[in-house]
């Protein structure tokens, strides 16, 4: 028997620590055990999705692949269950995966969306912080993750003059994490001076198991080159948890 889907009807209460985990199950996209373990302490919506070109009706793909999809998804659900996590599975056939993610994130008031990448082990979590604006949701999500990886708070200061501001930002963040119950020994702070912050973050992320970053960094570069989180995910080859920072003004 397939898993229960009843929870679709239930809209969760605003849940800052819920995570949307999209997996292209039919393309054989895998979730590593390390990742499942880190996410076992938060509410996970597991989204099995299949993106199809415009030539094909979504119903057509559903007729043919739905069973296979459900079977795959059940395997992932069991993996989460084995680590004591709670998971709500959903399956979607779509022509436009990002649009689907956005819709479901809004529908379920999701706190963060995972960009999957292989993660053999997660013993460091990189948390790039640009400024004080999005600090709260990012840190709340970080503190909610399970197990005890080292948390590296990272800030890229554009110049030497702004170093001091960066240091202050990082210590505020560290204090906030501590207040949220994170063991201070696990918290590390890193400051880099760079005028290409995305590259600095990508470099810092290379030997990290997971990156937690706020979405929609308001910078011109992001508009030209695409979303910062996506570019970091591509460059770092590690999973990226994109924290939704503007949940209030949703359309």
């Amino acid at each position, binding site marked *: 028997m397939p898993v229960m889907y009843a929870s679709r009807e239930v809209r969760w209460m605003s849940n800052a620590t819920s995570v949307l985990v999209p997996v292209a199950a039919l393309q054989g996209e895998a979730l590593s055990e390390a990742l499942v373990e880190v996410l076992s302490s938060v509410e996970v919506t597991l989204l099995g999705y299949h993106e199809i070109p415009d030539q094909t009706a979504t*119903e057509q793909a559903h*007729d043919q692949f739905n069973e296979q999809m*459900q079977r795959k998804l059940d395997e992932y659900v069991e993996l989460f269950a084995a680590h004591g996590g709670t998971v709500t599975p959903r399956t979607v056939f*779509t*022509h436009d995966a990002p649009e689907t993610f956005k819709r479901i994130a809004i529908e379920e008031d999701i706190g963060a969306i995972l960009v999957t990448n292989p993660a053999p082990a997660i013993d460091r979590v990189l948390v790039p912080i640009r400024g004080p604006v999005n600090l709260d949701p990012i840190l709340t999500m970080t503190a909610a993750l399970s197990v005890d990886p080292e948390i590296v708070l990272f800030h890229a200061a554009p110049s030497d003059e702004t170093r001091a501001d960066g240091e202050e930002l990082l210590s505020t963040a560290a204090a906030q994490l501590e207040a949220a119950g994170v063991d201070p020994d696990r918290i590390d702070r890193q400051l880099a001076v760079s005028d290409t912050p995305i590259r600095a973050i990508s470099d810092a992320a290379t030997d990290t198991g997971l990156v937690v970053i706020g979405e929609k960094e308001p910078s011109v570069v992001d508009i030209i080159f695409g979303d910062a989180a996506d570019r970091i995910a591509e460059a770092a080859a590690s999973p990226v948890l994109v924290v939704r920072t503007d949940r209030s003004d949703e359309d």
Partner: protein
Amino acid sequence: MSDDQPAPPETPQADSHADPAVDIGETTDETTITEEGSELERTIGLSGGLTIGIGTMIGAGIFVFPGLAAGNAGPAAAVSFGIGAIVALLVALPTAELATAMPKSGGGYYFISRGMGSLFGAVVGLSLWLGLVFATAFYLVGFGEYALAVLVEIGLPRPPDLGPLSLVAVLGVLCGVALTALSVGGTENTTKLQNAIVSLLLGILAVFLTVGIVDALGFLGAETTPEEFTPFGIGPVLSTAALVFTSYLGFAQIATVAGEMKEPSRNLPLAMVGSVIVVGVLYVVTIFVATSAFGSRELGQLGETAIVEVARSYLGLPGAIAILIAGLFATVSSANASILSASRALYAVSRDTLVPKEVSRVNLRYGTPHLALALVGGPTVLLVGTGQTELLAEVASFLHLIMYGLICVTLIVLRRQSPEWYTPTFQTPGYPVVPAVGGAASIAMIAFMQPTSQVVGLFVMIGAVGWYFLYARDVRLKGGEMDE
């Protein structure tokens, strides 16, 4: 078939009124939720729907027909296009109502099979597929004409025809093969590309038609003996209306993607009615501008690319080049949209096992239905080889008009029987006059076609009926359970 006695669901007659709600799943503004609990994302918005409609229609009405139509009917060809628009509107309204009640892939086939049973369904499903194949071939012949005109414009000597095939046909065949290969390969963002092309086309046309109107109104005042409005009489006006009706087939293509439209109850009627009105106005204005520039006999001799010469007369060489390029894009986008719709139509019939299921199998790697696309592209290319613009256009219209007639009948049948599942969110205004007149007008259009087109169309329909009795006689349409 439609039995007036409401039958309990267990009896075989239930076939003709199978409850499609079970089959469709629950429809929300953004998804369809299937029986198995999966979601099908709706990704086409209002502008996407309008683009499908306008993009499919505009290629024929503006870039292929004006010369032929004016040659047949004189300046009154504008009336022919107007008649076409009115008939299309009368059918678009009932189609929109049915589509909001059954927002699902397959369009006209789906409504008719669920309203009137599997025999009518099979005939419409198969003739919709072939009707779209004929339409695609027609657009590709148009493309060939434009490609040739481009070659001539850049000064290449006209190469000799290859054996029995005209050069136009060869160019059209090449384009058809390329489009089919592209769709099989799983090109991404075809929708976005289509949007961009349609916006570009509308932009070029806005400039051209505005200049044309301003100029034409000036001419009319100056001209001493304006051409008679109906130089060839009333008869040709009606037969031209039948010929150019191919320019209005696009609104039904919107229904074939009904399963993927966002907010279907709002967007389906708006997109269908809106696209017919937009192209109808553009067509009438185009004919007015064209017949103001040249006499109708001259336009008739200019043939499929007459509008290029019209643009040249108003805007000089840049105008001619802009319209040439627009014509290439318009005919390609029409052909492309029709190939995709035809593959959807085949999917819908194979899903109900009226043709083998294998036909619509999706390839996991490319994500596209290879066989269905090949079954559209293959026959299309053969038909393009004939190079018969008018015949292809009329047969395409014939097969669509049969479906339109049946759509109107289906609406009346469903309204009268009002099964529990039939809850359209859009109501056809003027019921029952609109569907009755729409249905009658659709069939009447066929009567004004050339005899050859009528014979070919009839053969296709007889073939479809034959197929039904040979292959699909005992097919039960899905209502309750999903039968494999």
